[in-house]
Structures are given as structure tokens and as C-alpha cells.
């Protein structure tokens, strides 16, 4: 087996790179900053119509009748579209095809679309919306997993009589024996909240009918163009090649522009084909928050046993995930949870059960972190609680049990083919924040009574499987095409979501070709130009797509070097390409510009484009026994936080965060740091501020006056620590950074707050009232609406 270090050695020392590993400027910076980038809502076409949705009136109701006759009479209204107008599939969904494009039998949450008005103006559409008469038969509803699982609870979907979306398990060893062998057994319950992606750009899509029968092009703020294409084609009842999906510049996604955009694309495509005109739909912020799926709230019951010296013996975990009205990604999200639920620790005996549950809340799906932020909040709070019971320092407890090279995970996977750097990231984060000294100093300060402001430090660590893992096929492609003047196009199946993929892919192409970064243009993803390379999710793009770009670029380079070799009268092995020149290694005087070689190759009739493909290494999963090689490689991260708590108000100020992440290798250190800063800000919101409040299915926090995200004033000093242990699989050894950065801060803050105040808070977010009074503001207001405290 080739080790990571062998592979890195083969890739050459780092200073051999001229573009990769450099802090290249984002290639799309200027168009974004100057406002020239075109987003979905910016698109206009001649004769374009506007579409608006009528949404459900009840979170759970049978639809008896939809009468749009009055609405159709409004001047400017061109069509009112309901489920009856759908020629193909009426439902879609990544796993369970349970979500209606337009509600037909029932509504299951308030975001369900019941009718679509298509009009020449938004005003006309709005007027017509008020005139659609829908007759409902309201049904009893359930608003929490506990309610949904109760005996005799109302059922949302006929295919799931117990309201269970899925049940995943992990079984390892014998937990009863493990607890029997333990000196200390601790049981705790933790809770997390609904979280909104809060991308700056709400959903937008435009469909344009093509001259061909049943053919349509859809543009929009689409995270996964291939997924959207499949849904559109199925709903229209046409083959995939009749639907072209083109991604616009994206104003953020964070996992949130998947199902909802597939649905919006299908709706506008339906409207475009029905009216024969381009149709555009743009959600308002309120619509976006009501309709859009969320990060799942979890209820997590953890039981852990350890010997007196702090060695973990057993963990038993039971988790309920509120999946809301539709399955969406719940089966995959909860699968990542079940795999990683015990955290980055060696636990000989494990029994984990995770249930995804249907409720009449807004549905939950993919969001940055994807099932990890919830379990990390739980297991990292738990480690601190256990350390307190054992009288150990929390970091020491982690170091004692943390994964090391060769450790075996809860799912039976030996971590033996990549650098297991958990200890390294923990130590680096702890050192950067001054953990050991402050842990001691602040505890002593707290003992001196009367201080109004108290400080604490805390940390949290995780391991995270890279890419899709056992979720499904993991392969993707890219095209690198050199033009006769030496300029380059890169096309990729994975899409820019605002995370900087254009820059990373352009850097990799330029590095391999030896051209300049400015000569590369990354093309918007267009489903008609490139094969389906799976979704842009799971922090897989740099690892998977980067390998595909590299593969394509290497093929083209071979052609160009062969031509250059002939021109310079040497073998192509003797040549190097770098900085826009191709030259004889060791004799840079004998050189040609990249453009000269490209022109010569063109004139000789050489193929200067190549297709690259990368298929991820094999993984497997045994659902029956809850064991397997879940992911082909893992990343390790640790974030440490220093906080100050105002004991008069409950206000928590995060003073400083140290974030250490092993990224394998940073293709672009600046964008890695960017991911860390953004992830920390998001993690801070998760920990302290953010919560989508739902009262009996009604979203109360519908805009950013009430859904609070951290502002630039709130985000503390962040110390990014980029740890590089090149991975055998990723391009240049690169792994992942997008998601791990946002999954760690909430528990680090909770641990620091507990260190400062002695108060353990087991429910997110740690808002003012919870920190001061130890109870949720929601409890005072009546969590379920009726039961006023």
C-alpha cells in the first residue's frame, strides 16, 4: 500500500508548484465585486412571464378542490397551473420520491405549492393569488418527532405508517458488557434547532422553451444542475436530452439549493411549456424561509461508560431527527450521523440508532455539515461532561481516547491508509488559544466571587468522512480544452456554489498545463456540455473534481509536450511546462511560449482537448449490521474558543477562535482560510444566535430581523491553522475543508461557557435567556403554541 507520504514525495516537493498552493486571487472576484456577475433573478428574456406560488393554508390537509376560475379572469394572467397540468411525474425526491411538485392529494407543510399563477406582471400574479379558491379538509398534524412516533399519531405518507423516514444503526461489540466494565456511566440528552441556510440570494429560476417539441432550457441559482435536470425531465415526461440546465452565478447555497431548486425548475419548465413563453420565478426572502428545507433538529440521547482512568468502554446512542414533511436527504444526512456519532474516539462497544421522522414542520435536508453539527454538539459536550465526572481535563480525556494511526472506527474501519492527525489538530488549536494556561487561570478567577464578567475556554474535535461515502456512486468528470492561442476552457460536472471552485479548478488546470492562471476560463456548468458528475455536495468537489480536472489537463499536456519536443528537438521527458512557457528542464533558454506550442499543435491537427474522469476509491456499507468502510478517507479538525459571559445579562462574547483543520493539502491557502472564516461565523450562529422557530408548523422567523445570523461585528478574531498531511487520494494530496469548519464551534462555545459559568447548556442556541436563566425563551412563549408557561 502506498502511503500518503510516499505519494506526496512522488508529487514532488511543494515549492515545485507554481500555481497550486499559492494564494491565487479568486478568478471571479472582479465580476462579483463590480456587480456584473449575472444571478438567476438578473435574467430577462423577451416576452418573459412571471410566476408566483400559492402555498398551503394548513400544515396538514386533504385537498378537496382547487378552483382557479376567478383567478384566470384577472387581466394579465396567462395561466394558472395545478397538479392536473403535469404531464409526467407528480412527485420527486432524491431517495424517496415523496414530494409533490404541486400538491395534489394533501398538503403536508405550509411551504407546499398548491397552484402557480403565470402572468405578464408580478402585480397581476399577486392579485390572482388571492382569488384561487382551495377547499381543504384539515387533518390532525404532528410537530415533533416525539409526537410523530406516538401511538395513533396522524400519518403523513401512506408508505410510512409509523412516520419513520429511515432507521440507521451501528453495532459494534457488546454495550452491556462495556457498561459493566465501566466505573463511570453518564447519560445525557441534547437538543438542536432548525437552521436556515441564509444564503444572500433567494431562489430564482427562468425556463425558456426551445423550438424542439417538449424541450426547455432552465437557468437559475442551482446547486446541482444534473439533479435539477433529472427532476425537470421526469416532471415533463421527456428524456434527459430535452432538458438543458445552465447554472447562473450563485449567491450562496450551503447545501440549500438542491431539492427546492429542482422543484422550482420543474415548476417554471412546466409553465414555460404550457404558455410557450419564458417564465421566471423568484422567491421573496419570506417565501424562501418558509419553503426552503432546513438543517434537521435532533434530539440526542447519549450514554457513555468509561473506566476511572478515562478509557472509553461503551457508547449507546439514540437519535431522533425531525425530517419534516418530506424525506429529501434525511436518509443520507442521518447516515453520516450514524457513522460519525461516537466522534473521533476509540470506543470498543457501540450501539447507535438514528431515526429520521416525518412531521408537519418544514422539511429538513442538506445543509453544510450534513448530519455532523448535531452529533458533534452532543458528543463534544458529552466528552466535557464525562471529563468533569472523572475529574480529568477535557483535552486529556480526548487525547487519551482520540483516533491514532491504525485506530478502528465505530463502523469497523481501520484508519490505516491516510495520516490520522487528530492529536496534531487538537494540540495546535489548544496551543493557539492558550488552552492549558487559560483553563487553569479562568477556573481560579471564577472562584473569586463577585466578578460580573467571567471567561472560559473550551474546544471540540471531529473526524469527517470525505465525499459521499456509502451514499452512492462517487465519480465525476471535467473537460480541459486548449485553444489555438494558448487560452484554456475548463468545464466541470461539479459546480461553483460560491465556495471558490472556479478558482481551484482553474489553478489545477494551469498547474498541470504550465500556462498562466489568467489564461484559464472556467465555464458555467451546463448539462448539455459535460457528463453527469454527481452533485456538488459533501465537500467533494476539490477532491473528486480536482482529480478529474488534473486527469484531463495531464492528457492535454502530453500532446503539447510532444509537439514542443519536436519543435525544440528533444524528447518530451526532458521538458517542463510552467509559468506560461515550455522549456528544457535545466536549460530554460531553450523554450517556447505556451501559446506558440498551442498554435503549432493546432496547425498540426492535434486534439487539444481532453476529458478527465475520476472514480472514488471503493467503499462499502452493510446496513444490516451497521458496519463498513464508510468513507475512503477522513479529515480531522479541532476548534477552540475563548468566551466571556456577562453574568448580568447572559450575553456570550466569543473573544477568539482557533481553528485547526487538516486539509491534506491546501490548493489555495487563501480560499481555505476563507472557508475557515465563513465556517466559524456560521458555527457561531449555530451556537449562539440562529434558530428557525416553528409554532405548529408556522415559521415565525421569516426574515433576518428575527432570524439572527452573526454580523461582522460579532465574529471574533479567528486564528486559522491549516494542517497539511497529503492524502493518497486527493489531487496533490488535497482533501476537504468546506463542511468541517462549521461543525465544531457550537460545542466549543458550549464547553467554554460551562467552563466560565459552571452551567452546562444542552440545547442550542445558547441565547441570552438560556445562558442566564438556563431555560429557553421558547418555553416561556409556549413551544407548541398552546402550552403557555
Amino acid at each position: 500500500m502506498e502511503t500518503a507520504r510516499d505519494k506526496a514525495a512522488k508529487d514532488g516537493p511543494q515549492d515545485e508548484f507554481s500555481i497550486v498552493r499559492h494564494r491565487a486571487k479568486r478568478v471571479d472576484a472582479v465580476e462579483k465585486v463590480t456587480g456584473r456577475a449575472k444571478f438567476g433573478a438578473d435574467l430577462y428574456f423577451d416576452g418573459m412571464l412571471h410566476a408566483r406560488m400559492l402555498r398551503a393554508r394548513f400544515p396538514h390537509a386533504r385537498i378537496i378542490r382547487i378552483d382557479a376560475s376567478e383567478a384566470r379572469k384577472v387581466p394579465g394572467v396567462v395561466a394558472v397551473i395545478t397538479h392536473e397540468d403535469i404531464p409526467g411525474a407528480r412527485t420527486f425526491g432524491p431517495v424517496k420520491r415523496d414530494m409533490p411538485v404541486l400538491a395534489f392529494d394533501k398538503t403536508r407543510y405550509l411551504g407546499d405549492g398548491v397552484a402557480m399563477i403565470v402572468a405578464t406582471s408580478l402585480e397581476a400574479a399577486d392579485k390572482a393569488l388571492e382569488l384561487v379558491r382551495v377547499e381543504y379538509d384539515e387533518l390532525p398534524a404532528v410537530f415533533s418527532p416525539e409526537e410523530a412516533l406516538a401511538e395513533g399519531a396522524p400519518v403523513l405518507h401512506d408508505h410510512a405508517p409509523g412516520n419513520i423516514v429511515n432507521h440507521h444503526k451501528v453495532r459494534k461489540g457488546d454495550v452491556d458488557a462495556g457498561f459493566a466494565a465501566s466505573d463511570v456511566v453518564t447519560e445525557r440528552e441534547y437538543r438542536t434547532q432548525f437552521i436556515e441556510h441564509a444564503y444572500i440570494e433567494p431562489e430564482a429560476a427562468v425556463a425558456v422553451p426551445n423550438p424542439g417539441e417538449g424541450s426547455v432550457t432552465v437557468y437559475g441559482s442551482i446547486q446541482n444542475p444534473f439533479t435539477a435536470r433529472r427532476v425537470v425531465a421526469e416532471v415533463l415526461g421527456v428524456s434527459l436530452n430535452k432538458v438543458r440546465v445552465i447554472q447562473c452565478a450563485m449567491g450562496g447555497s450551503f447545501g440549500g439549493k438542491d431539492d427546492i431548486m429542482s422543484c422550482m425548475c420543474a415548476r417554471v419548465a412546466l409553465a414555460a411549456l404550457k404558455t410557450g413563453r419564458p417564465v421566471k420565478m423568484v422567491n421573496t426572502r419570506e417565501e424562501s424561509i418558509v419553503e426552503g428545507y432546513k438543517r434537521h433538529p435532533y434530539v440526542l440521547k447519549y450514554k457513555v461508560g468509561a473506566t476511572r482512568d478515562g478509557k472509553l468502554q461503551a457508547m449507546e446512542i439514540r437519535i431522533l431527527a425531525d425530517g419534516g414533511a418530506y424525506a429529501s436527504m434525511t436518509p443520507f444526512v442521518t447516515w453520516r450521523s450514524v457513522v460519525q456519532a461516537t466522534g473521533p474516539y476509540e470506543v470498543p462497544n457501540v450501539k447507535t440508532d438514528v431515526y429520521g421522522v416525518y412531521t408537519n414542520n418544514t422539511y429538513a435536508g442538506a445543509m453544510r455539515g450534513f448530519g455532523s453539527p448535531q452529533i458533534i454538539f452532543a458528543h463534544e459536550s458529552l466528552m466535557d461532561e464525562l471529563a468533569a465526572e472523572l475529574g480529568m481535563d477535557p483535552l486529556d480525556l480526548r487525547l487519551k481516547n482520540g483516533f491514532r494511526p491504525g485506530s478502528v472506527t465505530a463502523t469497523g474501519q481501520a484508519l490505516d491508509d491516510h495520516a490520522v492527525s487528530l492529536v496534531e489538530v487538537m494540540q495546535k488549536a489548544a496551543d493557539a488559544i492558550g488552552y492549558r494556561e487559560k483553563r487553569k487561570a479562568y477556573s481560579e478567577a471564577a472562584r473569586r466571587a463577585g466578578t460580573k464578567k467571567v471567561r472560559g475556554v473550551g474546544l471540540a474535535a471531529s473526524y469527517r468522512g470525505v465525499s459521499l461515502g456509502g451514499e452512492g456512486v462517487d465519480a465525476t468528470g471535467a473537460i480541459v480544452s486548449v485553444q489555438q492561442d494558448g487560452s484554456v476552457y475548463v468545464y466541470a460536472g461539479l459546480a461553483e456554489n460560491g465556495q471558490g471552485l472556479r478558482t481551484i479548478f482553474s489553478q489545477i488546470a494551469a498547474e498541470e498545463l504550465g500556462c498562466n492562471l489568467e489564461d484559464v476560463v472556467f465555464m458555467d456548468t451546463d448539462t448539455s456540455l459535460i457528463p453527469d458528475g454527481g452533485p456538488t455536495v459533501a465537500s467533494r468537489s476539490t477532491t473528486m473534481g480536482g482529480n478529474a480536472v488534473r486527469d484531463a489537463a495531464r492528457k492535454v499536456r502530453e500532446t503539447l509536450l510532444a509537439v514542443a519536443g519536436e519543435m525544440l528537438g528533444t524528447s518530451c521527458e526532458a521538458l517542463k511546462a510552467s509559468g506560461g512557457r515550455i522549456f528544457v528542464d535545466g536549460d530554460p533558454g531553450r523554450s517556447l511560449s505556451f501559446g506558440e506550442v498551442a498554435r503549432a499543435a493546432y496547425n498540426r491537427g492535434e486534439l487539444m482537448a481532453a476529458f478527465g474522469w475520476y472514480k472514488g476509491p471503493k467503499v462499502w456499507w452493510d446496513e444490516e449490521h451497521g458496519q463498513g468502510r464508510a468513507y475512503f478517507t477522513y479529515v480531522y479538525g479541532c476548534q477552540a474558543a475563548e468566551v466571556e459571559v456577562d453574568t448580568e445579562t447572559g450575553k456570550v462574547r466569543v473573544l477568539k477562535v482557533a481553528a485547526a483543520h487538516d486539509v491534506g493539502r491546501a490548493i489555495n491557502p487563501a480560499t481555505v482560510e476563507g472557508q475557515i472564516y465563513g465556517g466559524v461565523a456560521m458555527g457561531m450562529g449555530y451556537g449562539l444566535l440562529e434558530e428557525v422557530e416553528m409554532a405548529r408548523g408556522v415559521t415565525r422567523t421569516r426574515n433576518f430581523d428575527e432570524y439572527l445570523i452573526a454580523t461582522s461585528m460579532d465574529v471574533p478574531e479567528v486564528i486559522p491553522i491549516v494542517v497539511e498531511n497529503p492524502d493518497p487520494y486527493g489531487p496533490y494530496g488535497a482533501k476537504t475543508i468546506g463542511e468541517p469548519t462549521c461543525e465544531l464551534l457550537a460545542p466549543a462555545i458550549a464547553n467554554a461557557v460551562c467552563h466560565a459559568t459552571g452551567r452546562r447548556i444542552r440545547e442550542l442556541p445558547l441565547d441570552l435567556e438560556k445562558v442566564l436563566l438556563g431555560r429557553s425563551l421558547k418555553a416561556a412563549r409556549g413551544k407548541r403554541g398552546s402550552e403557555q408557561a
Partner: protein
Amino acid sequence: MRPFSVTVPESVDEAVEALARWGSEARVIAGGTDLVVELKEDRRSPAVLVDISRLHELREIRVEKRAGARGEDEAESVGESDVVWVGALATHAEVASSPLVRAAAPLLADACAHVGSPQIRGRGTIGGNMCTASPAGDVIPPLFALEASVDVAGPRGVRSVGVESFFVGPKRSALAPDEIVLGVRFRAHGPEHVSFFRKLGQRKSLAISVVSVAFAARRLGPDTFEDARVAFGAVAPTVVRARTVEKALDGKRLDAATARHISRLAFRDVMPITDIRGSQAYRQEMACNLLYEGLLGLLSGNAE
């Protein structure tokens, strides 16, 4: 949002005329930071917006009446008991950075500095803040503590209303539909005055107050104050004066323990509700704690 037309009067008289003509169909717009949100959410659908942004005299911040005779060179300065006038169209940013307000009423400047974000402070006006009449409006508690009066113009001329009578309920003021606010006036603080404004929000910027408090008094000795005026925001249907607290503070020598004790009397003066930003119990507690923190900061040897 429903369609509407906009009229842009050039004088206060024209503005009042327009309002009289259109009656309840019309709505004044200043910075628009409150109104546009309401329009967008169809909470208001006026047919006509009366845009008062050209009434430049309402943007002024000036000393209106001198308490004593002073030389020309002191024209820009402010002395105790001078009457200060702040126009309704002064933005939060202008008030926060005005040397005159910083000297005469630092608590008002502070409150304006803590409104929203730079963008909101650049557009939002103090007149708009008052006319919205939110119990959480940050400008209002300082005006209570300053015992300001409000100049209002209408078809029947200009009248002056005491600030406490101006606010009649949550989001309700004593302003008639055909009236506009011209500005506020109050007596300037002198060297023996102390004051503070404190606000508690969930985050550091763009935070609507969960509770706010404004305090003004005259210092008698190192730890004694008289003439205290304490006003709380977001703990009652309107901003409220805490008279029990004020009485208890009068002439009393304060230390940390008495400050704590007196602050807790605020329980009697406030009657908060539970809403999305805070529960009743928490708000009550916070009213006391914010006041206590502020008082502590005034005590000798206890400056934070």
C-alpha cells in the same frame, strides 16, 4: 407592495397641506427604514407618500435658546440649560456625531450610535424613530430622560407636546394624520450632569433592543445624585419612566449594594411582555440589571 404616488413638498406648509388633502390615504416618508418594510409587507398601503426629505430646515441640530449671555466665538458651544433643538430629519449618524449633541446630551448621541447598522444610521431619522413609536425605539428612552418636548405642525399651526404624552401606546403616537413632527427640544446638560444609555440585544449590531435604559441625573456628591430620570425601553407598551426608582435614588448615597437594591425596584415600574426577542421574566430581570450596571459605572472608583 401596492402602487402609490409620491409627492415632494418644498415647505412644511406644503407638507401639511398635502396631508390634509389626502387624509388617511397619505403617509409621510423620511428615511423609509421603517415604512418601506411596512409597505413591502402590506401592513400599510398608502396611495400617496409625502416625501419630506427636501425640508432641509428639519435636518438642523442647533442651540435654540441661550440660557445666559455669551460672546460670538462661543456660538458653536453649548452651556447648561441652553435649549437644544434637533430636527426630525436628522439621521442617527448625524445625531451620533454631532459635537453639540455629544456635549449637551451624550445619552442621546449614544443611543443613535447604537441603532441598527451604518446603513440604517445613515438613512433612518430620529423623527421616524419617534413616529414609529415602537416601545423598543432606541431614541425614545433618552428623550424621556431629557424630558424633551416634541414640535408638531398641522393645519392648526405648530404645537409642542411633552414627550411622555406623545407616545400613547405600542406603535401609537399622539400625532394626528395631518400632522408632522418638526423636531425635539430639550435642556442641555452641564458639567454636573451624569447620564447613560444602555441597550441589550442578541448581537452587537443590527439588534433590536430586548431591553434598553436611559438615565440622567445631577451629581450632588461622588456617589449621590438628584433629579434622576430613568426610562426603560421594550418593557411596557410604550417607553416608561421608572418613578419608583427615581424617587429612591434621590439624594441617596449609593454603593454597590444600594445600587443593586434600588435597581431592583424597577420591577415595579415595568410590565414587559413575552415576544420573539425575550420573555417577560427575562426582560424584567434585565431592566434591573442594565440599570444596575449603568449606576455602578457612575460610582466613584468603580468606573468600568
